[in-house]
């Protein structure tokens, strides 16, 4: 059984998500709350496997929920509920430890599928998120293989933590290719591609955590 916590301040959406979770026998709802405080309390009490959280909560940001969830259980998967799946907040969320996103108007069946996917080790990613991740690491969006005849547009990206394979995966995602097609291009299975994406998310979180520590040092907080 996968323990799921829902954090959403809009009752209608909360009901909709709750219904979707309840309707799936392999999922167990360990909480459906509408505030950061309540979410933190439920996380501490139940250590959920998957957390679905909205970003704009009445008493704080969804980022706090993500951090609390990851702190309580590092293996916890957090899906951010977003309107379109491509706003800049998603990257912040991934940096904070989120491993995926869910669009608000998703069908109930899609909601359950997404939760199961992420719990099974998959990670949803859209072309715009892929682009944002690439940009975050200051990697050119255009594939390196495309640039063999072109002058290098910018110098070596600043110590990107991503492997060449992961970078290539992101580029293909950014072009709109699905995991099966990416697997064909890279000569791997779609499952492996899913693993790459999850790694990318984790690295982004680790990378960002390092930056956070550095910044905290700079500010004299640590």
């Amino acid at each position, binding site marked *: 059984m996968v323990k799921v916590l829902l954090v959403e301040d809009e009752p209608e959406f909360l009901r909709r998500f709750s219904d979707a979770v309840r309707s799936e026998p392999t999922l167990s709802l360990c909480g459906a709350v509408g505030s950061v405080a309540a979410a933190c309390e439920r996380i501490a009490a139940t250590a959920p496997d998957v957390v679905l959280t909205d970003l704009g909560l009445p008493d704080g940001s969804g980022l706090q929920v993500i951090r609390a969830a990851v702190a309580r259980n590092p293996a916890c998967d957090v899906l951010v509920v977003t309107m*379109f799946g*491509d706003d800049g907040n998603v990257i912040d969320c991934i940096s904070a430890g989120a491993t995926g996103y869910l669009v608000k*108007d998703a*069908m109930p069946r*899609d909601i359950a599928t997404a939760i199961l996917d992420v719990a099974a080790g998959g990670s949803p990613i*859209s*072309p*715009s998120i892929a*682009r944002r991740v690439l940009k975050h690491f200051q990697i050119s969006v*255009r*594939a390196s*293989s*495309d*640039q*063999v*005849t*072109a*002058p290098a547009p910018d110098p070596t990206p600043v110590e990107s933590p991503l492997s060449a394979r992961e970078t290539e995966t992101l580029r293909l995602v*950014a*072009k*709109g*290719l*699905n995991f099966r*097609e990416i697997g*064909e291009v890279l000569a791997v299975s779609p499952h492996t591609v899913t693993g790459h994406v999850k790694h990318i998310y984790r690295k982004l979180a680790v990378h960002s955590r390092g930056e956070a520590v550095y910044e905290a040092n700079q500010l004299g907080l640590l």
Partner: protein
Amino acid sequence: MVFYKAIARSIATLLVLCACAQAQIVRPRHAVALFVDADQPPAATLPWQGVDLPYSSDQQTVWYRIRFEAPAQLAGAWAVYLPYLYGGGRLYLNGELLTRITEPGAGQVVRWERPHFVPVPNSLLHPGSNELALRVVAEPVAHRGRVPLLAMGPQDALRGEYEGRLFWVRTMSQFSLLATWIVGPLMLAIWWRRREETLYGLFGVAALLWGVRTLNLVIEVLPSEWWWWWRLAYHSATGGFAIILMVFLLRLANLRYPVVERGLMGFWLLGPIGFVLSGGSEWVTGRLWAGALIPICLVTLGVGLWAAWRTRTVELIALVAAIAMAVLAGVHDFLVTSTAPLLQAIAPDAAAHRVFLLHYAADLVLLVMGAILAARFIRTLEAIAQLNQTLETRVAEREQSLVEKFAQVGHLERQHAVDEERQRIVRDLHDGLGSQLFVTLSRVEVGRMQQADIVQALRECIADMRLTIEAMSPDDNDFLVSWGNFRFRWERQLQVAGLESSWQLHTQSAVLEMAPHAGLQLLRIAQEVLTNILKHARASQVVVRLAHGDGKLRLDISDNGVGMQAHPPEGGRGMVNMQSRARQLGARMGVQQAQPGTTVWVELELPPAQLPTVNATNAA
């Protein structure tokens, strides 16, 4: 100390020697004169008259006999020193001819400015009493024969005196001549190019006139037929120099009175005219006219002095002082020439030596004039440099303001572009999402919509919003980014609906640059086609193909459904919408029916972006 004593002793010895030499120089003050024209010294028995030296006579030729004592012991060779002998003559010592100094005669006029130094053979000089006989010929200007206060003595003692006078009377003149004839034309050349700089012109003319006058002194022997012209040139140059100097002074003082200047020039002309009319009278020109120049110069000088007092400019003060000296020198020379009794009474030696000062004073004046012009020239250069600097600063300022203006214009243009884009988005929201929501609302309000229809309508609204966001979000206007997102979303949607989709992308470019609103229209068409396929086509397979090449972008969406003829979407309204969008895009579109299925195609001109193109064909 020893060293200093040695020097002191040397100096003392030298002074003693000089004193000895000076002591041996003889300057007789008396002579006897005989007014006859004879080639040889006339006999002593003739009626000689006693005269005091220096002496001048209006006779053409006069003989003088001068007695002097020579010491028993001669300190070196002796010489006779004549400070001047304007008309030439002959010199005898104890009856023996010492020298002939060229006299005016057949076809030539002589006027010696230089002093004469006549060495005396020791054999001719007797210890004790000696007699010098001197034939003096009148000089051609005043027609007077002048005997100077001559000197006899050791050559070493006299040579200094001789060379000193030679330098001042002759070498200086030669030097002045050279200088004026170099500087004059140079200044005139400057004035020729810059006519408004009259001071340069005046200076040039003054220098040349002074050069002409000096030439008169430098050339001492001349053919007779030139003499008249020679004097004319001399008087014209001398007077002209003074007049030009006055004009220069007035102009430097910023006193520009054309009448006065014309008057001065007119007076200048009077001299040569008088000389010509009087048949070359030295009295009319040299005395009357030149004499009248003096008060004129004095008055002008007074005006200059007054101006200098008022303006206190260094230039004017210096020039006034120099001219004042020149005027004084001119007065002095005038008095010397005219052998004024006053001068002879006050300074008999100066009168006797006939030292003319105007040459040097004029040189000084020319020097001051040159210095003034040089100072002005330098000031002008500095002013130009200053001006250049100011100009450069101004240019830099203008450049800066231009850069700012360009930046402003660029900003405004960007702002304008942003505003235009904003208007498009607003219009788009109004026409698209807005109207769709209003239609849905009004239909829901009157209860004419089933719940499923409402859900469908709202989902379409959200889909359209997503489309707008997809089209608007790429920051580099790359249509491929929007297309990637569009594909990602629709692939899932088709998959959920049970359709198998195949997405193909054929492009040589890594980037397809397209304005966001154009991209949006193209995506809307694609969305409309796909929605129609979902709703009506009952297809199981969709092939979406985007190809870019030869400056054209072509979108083909094919399905294997029942075809459009059988199910015209919404009574053909969807097709009309698509046609309208294609027109806005400047695109052509068409529908091809197949058995089974339909292909909708859109084609528009899209030149390749100015970006590196590469061999990247992605077919999936």
